[in-house]
């Protein structure tokens, strides 16, 4: 039989950003628990609001299935005497289990014939199991930050204040953190203040909660909010400025959302759009409205936690708060504009970059040098102005606006530079240089932005690694992963071909007095870190793991070039020739490994080459080498792979007929050198041996590539 199960954990407001993770943990862990207990169930539904975590299982098996267990008694030899009558041992065993001896059976076990019986173990009820498991379940949840609030010192995300829990209409009894599960719930904190009501089924739960002004389902709140935003925007003849992140957040900031439209003084529109939007969204969680041309209109939309009955009052309140904040922003803008960025840049000796890495002023000096190096490498125009941007790019850290709204770093610098009348190359570069902040973010549009962005991020990464601040799994306070991904993304997006190691050296040199490790040590860590990030990016692009492995290790130093190789491999890999070559190379690599060979420069002794197949291989490899070199020079990787594939018949024939591991050590060495030469030619492009043929994805290596295969 199956019963309806539902549970509502009533808490004090859970931070919006934790809610989804918390409810999925709860629901997943419950599912695992039920599986471990062998309780069958239908779908599990889950919902959350800031004050409630709700899980519903419309049909949960009422009890575990009964099972049987074999209870073993004495061996037959000890259970029956010579006359085949039950001994005391047998009778005792039977009596202990409330059975007669003739109800027992003799069964052949591992160690011989034993007396025993099949015991029926009734399944435990879901109610009993849940009573025991639910407190453990709640205790098992993980949060980025937990707290204590009562005498049992239970740790949870926020204080638990009530628990509603019913199975088949009956309360499931348990206690956690001083709260006992019961059959009641509460309505909206304000609109239904202090009202308690009994809930006996999920159906009545839905109705009662709505009646008490609670929308416990996030998808419900989302659609209510989206509709209301659209209606209010439309009513004012404007469009909503899309803000998906804010929308996602706002869904979890209330239990009964509605939208209020407010106004602000049009005079504030003289402030840059970025400032207005930031003020509205960051502190106040308001949505901005734009006109048909995309300019801001002097109105905002606030999602409030209330029905519409007192919208006017709430509007007035929100308008007042916004006015104060915009006044502050206007004040900051006017005061900040009075001091030129050049002047501010000198004050950067008062702003710390990192405790051991010095001030921002020192950083900007380094950035100018790096920008110079990078600019010359990619042969950018207007290098002087770009270097000026590098020098001024952190000046906005001394402005009141950025002190108040730290997210506007860089953007304000660009806006102040523009307001000051600096060349647009300079203001654009400053404006853009924090991008890209994530893989989804856009790279800078201008070359100035590109150069300052790379210089800034590289300086941070190299500096941190140089003093041993290598990010770990959980700690990356300087966001070095993001910075590195940013550098790589820009290089790839803008198709810039540079050597990371060369740029790294320039950067490390600037840290030589502060570094606590050597350049070589630091490069080991930096390069490894870069490779990991590059692999990640390529994976996100949709390349396969084996293609990525084939190129990253070899070619990561020039990320854009690496991408070209990757594209070429992805294009050719499905051809039969290529797959065969890949197999062949794997085989060669294994042979060389087994023979203890490092890839050496020893050349092949032609006189020792034996039959046709050996000769042919040597000739073709020899002929192909200059062609491969030429392809590499012009970065025609596709061509290079095609050359590689053309060797297939020769290589196949070689392996068919030639015993590489000949008895004669001279012959053996010679053949190994031949293979080495072949491998080396192509290893410069990609480690093709990494490619896993489609038919063999992640499966065991087959005979043709196994290291123990003959003949060779």
């Amino acid at each position, binding site marked *: 039989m199956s019963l309806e199960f539902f549970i509502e954990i009533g808490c004090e407001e859970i931070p919006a950003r934790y809610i989804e993770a918390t409810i999925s943990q709860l629901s997943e862990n419950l599912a695992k628990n039920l599986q471990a207990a062998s309780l069958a169930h239908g779908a599990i539904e889950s919902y959350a609001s800031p004050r409630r975590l709700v899980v519903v299982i419309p049909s949960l098996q009422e009890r575990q299935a009964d099972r049987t267990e074999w209870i073993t008694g004495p061996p037959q030899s000890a259970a029956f005497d010579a006359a085949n009558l039950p001994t005391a041992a047998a009778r005792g065993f039977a009596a202990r289990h409330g059975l007669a001896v003739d109800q027992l059976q003799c069964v052949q076990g591992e160690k011989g014939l034993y007396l025993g019986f099949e015991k029926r173990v009734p399944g435990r009820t879901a109610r009993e199991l849940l009573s025991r498991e639910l407190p453990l379940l709640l205790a098992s949840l993980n949060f980025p930050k937990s707290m204590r609030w009562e005498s049992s010192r239970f740790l949870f995300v926020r204080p638990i204040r009530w628990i509603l829990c019913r199975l088949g209409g009956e309360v499931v009894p348990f206690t956690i953190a001083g709260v006992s599960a019961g059959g009641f719930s509460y309505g909206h904190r304000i609109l239904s203040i202090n009202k308690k009501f009994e809930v006996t089924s999920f159906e009545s739960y839905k109705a009662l909660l709505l009646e008490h002004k609670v929308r416990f389902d996030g998808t419900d709140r989302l659609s209510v909010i989206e509709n209301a935003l659209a209606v209010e925007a439309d009513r004012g003849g404007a469009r909503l400025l899309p803000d998906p992140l804010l929308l996602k957040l706002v869904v979890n900031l209330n239990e009964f959302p509605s939208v209020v439209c407010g106004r602000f003084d049009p005079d504030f529109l003289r402030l840059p759009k970025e400032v207005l939007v930031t003020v509205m969204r960051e502190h106040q969680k308001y949505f901005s409205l734009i006109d048909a041309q995309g300019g801001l209109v002097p109105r905002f939309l606030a999602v409030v936690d209330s029905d519409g*009955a007192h919208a006017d*009052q709430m509007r007035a*309140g929100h308008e007042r708060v916004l006015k104060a904040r915009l006044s502050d922003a206007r004040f900051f803008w006017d005061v900040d504009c009075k001091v030129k960025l050049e002047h501010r840049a000198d004050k950067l000796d*008062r702003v710390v970059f990192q405790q051991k890495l010095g001030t921002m002023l020192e950083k900007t000096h380094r950035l100018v040098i790096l920008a110079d190096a990078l600019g010359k490498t990619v042969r950018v125009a207007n290098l002087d102005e770009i270097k000026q941007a590098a020098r001024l790019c952190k000046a906005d850290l001394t402005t009141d606006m950025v002190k108040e709204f730290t997210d506007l770093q860089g953007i304000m610098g660009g806006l102040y530079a523009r307001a000051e009348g600096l060349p647009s190359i300079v203001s654009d570069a400053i404006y853009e240089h924090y991008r890209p902040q994530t893989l989804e973010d856009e790279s800078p549009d201008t070359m100035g932005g590109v150069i300052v962005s790379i210089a800034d991020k590289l300086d941070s990464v190299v500096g941190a690694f140089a003093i041993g601040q290598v990010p770990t799994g959980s700690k990356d306070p300087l966001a070095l992963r993001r910075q590195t991904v940013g550098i790589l993304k820009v290089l790839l997006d803008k198709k810039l071909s540079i050597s990371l190691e060369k740029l790294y050296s320039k950067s490390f040199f600037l840290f030589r007095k502060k570094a606590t490790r050597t350049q070589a040590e630091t490069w080991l860590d930096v390069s490894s870190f870069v490779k990991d990030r590059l692999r990640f990016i390529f994976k996100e692009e949709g390349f396969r793991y084996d293609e990525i492995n084939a190129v990253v290790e070899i070619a990561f130093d020039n990320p854009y070039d690496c991408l070209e190789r990757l594209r070429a491999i992805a294009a050719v890999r499905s051809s039969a020739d290529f797959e065969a070559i890949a197999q062949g190379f794997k085989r060669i690599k294994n042979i060389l490994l087994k023979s203890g060979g490092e890839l050496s420069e020893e050349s092949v002794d032609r006189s020792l080459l034996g039959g046709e197949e050996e000769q042919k291989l040597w000739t073709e490899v020899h002929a192909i080498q200059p062609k491969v070199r030429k392809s590499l020079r012009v970065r025609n990787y596709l061509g290079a792979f095609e050359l590689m594939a053309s060797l297939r018949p020769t290589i196949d024939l070689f392996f068919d007929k030639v015993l590489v591991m000949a008895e004669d050590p001279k012959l053996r060495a010679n053949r190994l050198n031949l293979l080495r030469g072949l491998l080396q030619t192509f290893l410069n492009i990609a480690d093709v041996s990494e490619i896993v043929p489609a038919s063999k994805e992640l499966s065991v290596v087959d005979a043709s590539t196994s290291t123990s295969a003959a003949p060779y």
Partner: protein
Amino acid sequence: MLFQDLFLKLLQFWADRGCVIQMPYDVEKGAGTMNPETFLRVLGPDPYTVAYVEPSRRPADGRYGENPNRVQKHHQLQVLLKPSPPDIQLVYLQSLERIGIRLIEHDVRFEEDNWESPTLGAWGVGWQVLLDGLEITQFTYFQQAGGLDLDPCSVEITYGLERIGMFLNNAESCFDLQWNQTTSYRTIRMRDEVEFSRYNFEAADSALHFQWFEDFEREANRLIDIGLILPAYDYCLKCSHVFNVLDARGAVSVSERARLVQRVRTLACGVAAGYVKTPSETSAQLPV
């Protein structure tokens, strides 16, 4: 509502719920939390409930009385309940009704905000309470103070009186509030704001303040060593205030800042450790 009625009503509300109504502490400080009635009382196992108004000095926030929202001294109404009652959020909301805020007419939100004070080695988990987008209260369950885990955990409710006053009276500036029937906030507070802004930003003698920091720190340590914890805490507070003035004055370089904060923190932790070691002279406060 008159400004003084605001805090009189709130104090009465909490007095009715069994809180000791205390006085602001007579040493300069930046928040009600720093009053020994909170900072020390949260330590150790003894229950306590207290409420008081605390004028809070934050030199860097001074605006010469020209900004309608920002002042170098604002008034907090601090409530500390140890242990925290299970219905505390409801009681807090009732206190708002008590001062004339009709909750049903407003957008009330508890938004995540975890308070911490590096100088006191203290932190908690909680919310800022927003009323139509205006922050009016900090609501915190203390987890640690003076570097020590707290058991039982206290809950602290800090009302921003100026904010609430402006909200209730639709005032654009706190200086426009009527403190009582005859006297405005401006009359009482303006000169203080102007003179102290001048002092903190322009006139304070930095060398003298640095010297005081050294002297107060030395004295605090000496008193901790001889077990005079409450007097030691006075000097810890003085160090903290002196630091705040130096900061407002622009006399503290960025690297020095971290060091000075650390030094005050060390004093606070020393005081906390000393406090929990010595048994209280009187019997424990009767719980609410």
